[in-house]
């Protein structure tokens, strides 16, 4: 069974395989870890987030559930309070509403309400994002919703190496961590693949610290703050705009809670311009928070108006031309950057 495939030192994995590798290595190490969710067993996860785990760890540790998100997410919380370390999958983040009370009033709050006496170490992993015409109930990102509510860490990897390192960090964290993976970065064989969905992944056991953003491209004219699949769109646009003499610094946030304010502020302090590219809904979300961080530090930092490239407060439409019109696509990103540096 080949969970990993080594290729002469620079071994490349898809994001999905990198996640699975991180989970598997941790499960080897710590018997209190188990994986639970809908179709995580024989199917291997609808988005391949658990492929091969059942075969490797058996059905006592890789557990298919009924379609009872409230029951099994709550079960994960309770098991965590008794010292286990569950990794539980919510198949699409869009389904959060059937179990949000468990997530938000229990998983996220028990540690606080207990005055620190009860820990809830678990990973809630969930697929996010659109772009393949899955409609209004299966295409959302919603990280702004989770980041607004205190008590859970929120991580959002964009590439295979980070996916593994953030997974290991999330598993070892003593807090509940929401791990949001975009379908478009998983490297699935049945979906349009971003070329960077396959990349070099260290073999061993390593963590990407939660709360630390990554400057994925250095530049001096404008700061692009983004995350998840949009990182790749932004890198593509940055490459293109470099030809026009525009130098973009691209920040992959990687975590929303905690948010790496310093990396953002340093960059904006340098470029004086900020474009936020966010596949979540625009208002009352990430772009706002970033604007506030700048404004409460030094509003003079921004020499040009903030630009936001996000979903313009509309449910995600099914039909392709409409969906493409509301997503943060290459052309919208490029236009926003050009306007900001003009």
């Amino acid at each position: 069974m080949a969970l990993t495939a080594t290729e002469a030192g620079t071994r490349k994995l898809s994001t999905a395989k990198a996640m699975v590798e991180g989970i598997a290595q941790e499960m080897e190490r710590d018997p209190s870890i188990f994986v639970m969710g809908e179709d995580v067993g024989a199917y291997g996860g609808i988005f391949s987030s658990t492929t091969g785990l059942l075969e490797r760890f058996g059905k006592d540790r890789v557990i298919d559930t009924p379609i009872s998100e409230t029951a099994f997410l709550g079960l994960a919380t309770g098991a965590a309070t008794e010292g286990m370390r569950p990794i539980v999958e919510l198949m699409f983040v869009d389904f959060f509403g059937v179990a949000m009370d468990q997530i938000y009033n229990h998983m996220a709050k028990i540690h606080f309400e207990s005055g620190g006496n009860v820990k809830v170490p678990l990973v809630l992993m969930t697929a996010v994002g659109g772009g393949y015409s899955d409609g209004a109930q299966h295409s959302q990102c919603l990280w702004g919703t989770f980041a607004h509510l205190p008590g859970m860490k929120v991580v959002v990897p964009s590439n295979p190496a980070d996916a593994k390192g953030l997974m290991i960090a999330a598993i070892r964290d003593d807090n509940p961590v929401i791990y949001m993976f975009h379908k478009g970065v998983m490297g699935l064989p049945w979906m349009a693949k971003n070329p960077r969905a396959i990349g070099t992944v260290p073999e061993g056991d390593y963590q990407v610290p939660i709360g630390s953003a990554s400057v994925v491209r250095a530049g001096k004219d404008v700061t692009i703050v983004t995350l998840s699949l949009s990182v790749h769109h932004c890198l593509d646009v940055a490459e293109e705009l470099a030809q026009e003499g525009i130098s973009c610094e691209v920040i992959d946030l990687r975590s929303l809670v905690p948010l790496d304010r310093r990396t953002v502020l340093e960059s904006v302090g340098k470029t004086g311009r900020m474009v936020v590219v966010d596949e979540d809904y625009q208002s009352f979300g990430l772009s706002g928070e970033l604007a506030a961080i700048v404004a409460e530090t030094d509003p003079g930092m921004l020499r040009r108006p903030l630009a936001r490239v996000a979903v313009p407060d509309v449910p995600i439409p099914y039909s392709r031309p409409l969906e493409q019109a509301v997503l943060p696509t290459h052309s919208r990103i490029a236009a926003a950057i050009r306007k900001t540096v003009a």
Partner: protein
Amino acid sequence: MDPKVKVELYRTMVLIRSFEETILQHYHADKSPAWDIGAGLIPGEMHLSAGQEPVAAGICANLTASDAITATHRPHHLAIAHGVRMEALAAEIFGRETGLGKGRGGHMHLFDPGTHFSCSGIIAEGLPPALGQAFAFQRRGLPNVVVAVTGEGAANQGAFHESLNLAALWKLPVVFVVEDNDWAISVPRTASTAVPSNAARAAAYGIPGERVENNDVEEVWRVAKGAIKRARSGDGPTLIEVHTVRLWGHFEGDAQAYRNDLEEAKAHDPIEVYAGLLAREGVLDTKGAAKIKEECTKEVASAIDFAKTSPLPDPAGALQYVFA
């Protein structure tokens, strides 16, 4: 049972299957060589209902366009059987401006106010709005009923319980139908449900519960008839489970590697089974069946043609319809 009804049941099933086969074909036609779910004339997830036609045909033969029906992520069979305009249905699936939702909804979000048809992509969460339609009918003194359909996997979702209790408590004119196709994606019924029949769950709400075995369209028709009559006369809801079959994948692209019952399932194609029965009964001969097939194929072809020749929505309108 009136032979005319039998033929109608058969025709509805054939019409559904013709539609689904055509969608299947178009869905896969332009996704290769590197199969991409987001590519082609019909992008996105596609949940087809082949095998489950008896549920739709048997129930909807007892309904009028003033009655409501709520379906799931797998809604086409019920939409067609309930009389949703096939052009508008097909156009929505093709994402066209002429579709039921002007291309905004897609195949899991079909709304047809004319026939009170709706569906939802969230498991069991179509039931609560169905209660509201029933409530509106009841409060206005209308004789209409609502049929609320879910899968057997969905019967373990909290919304199922809340909806049955509330409907029973207020004697709402609803018929709850569980399509038991043995699978919830890759999870077999035995791994999701603590009881062998969801009909047993009716006891938790003090309402009648019935299970129809063998994907039997006539039995569905009979049991649904009784339940709908009961609902119409103000006696409240009934819970019906139909043991049916999912002939194809959960969604298109599902390799079904987890499944060991496929051969058996294929051997129980309800349309073939029913054609055989009607032939044996002398109700419909091969020629009659062929004629029905031909008529259905034509109807479907014209609907698909309408869809394919309809305009895609103008991206300039992408922000429309958020608010009324």
